[in-house]
């Protein structure tokens, strides 16, 4: 804890400061980069519903602070007027890939080529989610029938699961990505520790279901009946009977929220025990 605490204290003081000359009136109406050290971010939108975009925007003022201090948004179909995928530090990808759609396949490959870090944002990008149920036959592209989570086509570095993902998790990952790329060695270590479980989730695979709780938690003798899975499920497919999860699998949309929220899927004592200072630091960073 000592290390984590000291890292976070440093982080508050090391929050990027605007250079003094920014306050001077500028000639051009075009945005000048107010902070030298922003990370560049792109947002690739594939077969998604824009709910992940909305979740990002639902950080309200926090999003503006992110854009102001830490993130230079290079490319994002809904929010930025840039037509093509650009070279960036971090790409967020929303939606799965229709492998019958040539453009979508090209875009996900190009995203990988042009990004240092690729983040799968939301249940569809991570696990397929509702697009797992696609099987084609609809007008006017009846042959668009096969959809894959992006991790089946490219290497993904970080998962942000959830349908919709929580705005706060997107925010935390964005701040951690900033520290990872621009921070001091201690901040990098801390950001890595924070991101590690989300990186491990990306390594683990591209499928999700209520059944994960059975195969990887209950069947493994790890479930202790806390109820987090039921709280996390967006479609109320999980109830508890005698303290153990009961899944209505025909309701389940395969988003992966339950398993990832479960404290017995992955749990880092180091990171979670420092919850107070981590939360405070993130809030301070977004002031």
């Amino acid at each position, binding site marked *: 804890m000592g290390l984590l605490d000291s890292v976070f204290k440093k982080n508050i003081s090391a929050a990027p400061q605007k250079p003094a000359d920014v306050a001077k009136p500028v000639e051009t109406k075009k945005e000048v980069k107010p902070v030298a050290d922003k990370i560049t971010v792109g947002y690739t939108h594939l077969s998604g519903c824009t709910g992940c975009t909305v979740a990002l925007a639902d950080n309200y003022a926090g999003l503006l602070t992110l854009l102001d201090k830490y993130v230079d948004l290079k490319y994002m179909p809904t929010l930025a007027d840039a037509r093509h995928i650009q070279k960036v530090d971090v790409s967020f990808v929303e939606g799965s890939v229709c492998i019958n759609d040539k453009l979508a396949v090209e875009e996900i490959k190009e995203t990988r080529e042009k990004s240092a870090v690729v983040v799968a944002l939301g249940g569809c990008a991570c696990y397929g989610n509702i697009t797992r149920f696609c099987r084609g036959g609809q007008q006017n592209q009846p042959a668009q029938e096969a959809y894959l989570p992006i991790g089946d086509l490219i290497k993904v570095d970080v998962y942000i699961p*959830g349908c919709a993902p929580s705005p706060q998790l997107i925010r935390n990952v964005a701040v951690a990505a900033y520290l990872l790329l621009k921070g001091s060695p201690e901040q990098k270590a801390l950001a890595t520790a924070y991101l590690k479980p989300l990186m491990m989730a990306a390594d683990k695979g591209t499928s999700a279901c209520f059944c994960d709780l059975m195969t990887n938690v209950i069947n493994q003798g790890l*479930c202790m*009946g806390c109820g*987090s899975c039921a*709280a996390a499920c967006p479609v109320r497919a999980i*109830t508890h009977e005698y*303290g153990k999860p009961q899944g209505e699998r025909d309701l389940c949309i395969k988003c992966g929220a339950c398993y*990832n*929220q479960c404290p017995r899927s992955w749990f880092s004592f180091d990171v979670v*025990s420092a919850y107070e200072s981590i939360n405070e630091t993130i809030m301070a960073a977004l002031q």
Partner: protein
Amino acid sequence: MGAELGNYKSCVSARSTDKEILKHAQDGGIVSQLFGFALDEGIIDGAIVAANKEFAAKYPSKVMADNSNFDMIEPWRPIPAIVNTRAELIAAAGTKYNVSPNVSMIKEATRSFGLDKVGIVGTPCQMQAIRKLQLYPVGARDVGASIALAVGIFCMENFPYQSILQLVEDHAAMKMESVKKMEIGKGKFWVYGKRGQVVQLPLKVTHKYEQPGCKVCLDYVANLGDISTGSVGSPDGWSTVMVRSKIGDSVWAKAMAAGCFETQPIEKVKPGLELVSKLANEKISKNKATLEARATFGVGKALRNPYI
């Protein structure tokens, strides 16, 4: 004494000064008094607790819809519920020695129940669950910042409902509905009947009925609660209280100033923190050994370790 007790700012032996609460409390009435005070002061506007069938019958809108078939709910089976008043708090008081998935209500508390400042009481693993949910909210949009007071209770292990049924009706030969109170203490499992009878079972008898998921648990005194409390370390009728976070510190100071609690320095009471530490160490080393054994459980195959 080291890491086994987690970080804490202060530790005392305490009991509620509210006679009505003490009458219904398991030990010193800490949880009921804290939540009662926090409700009165507007620190929380509701709390998630483990209620029961009678509570659900009386306050049907305070429990989750899917528990609505009350006929199916047996005596001593906990039902997570939201309480908004002192009367509801008291109606839900007392330890039920079987699993209550309290965290299942944490999101709903901020949705249909409309709470902005949620209190929650739970076992150490449930405190871990809510801290994970605050740092990594996967299916928990806007929930983390609404958690205003998390009270953790010491926990050596828990039981599935059917285990308690077996222990009470078979080993202790008592009907579940005739039980007034259950307690684990002084190395025994105690069952108190409504007609005054007392049965004690050696803890050895209870071991095979423990919830298997508890055997990998590395936390005894709810290290991640804002405030944690339990009977161990303090005399009968009193509780050991550990104040841990900034939130916990501020709530505890306000409650003390308001005269909610009588306290004694933990150093002055018997058996005190030494016993708490001893039990915590026993639990943690036993369960660490279980985790190690899981790594070589099969032939060249491990069982999964959730801790990274």
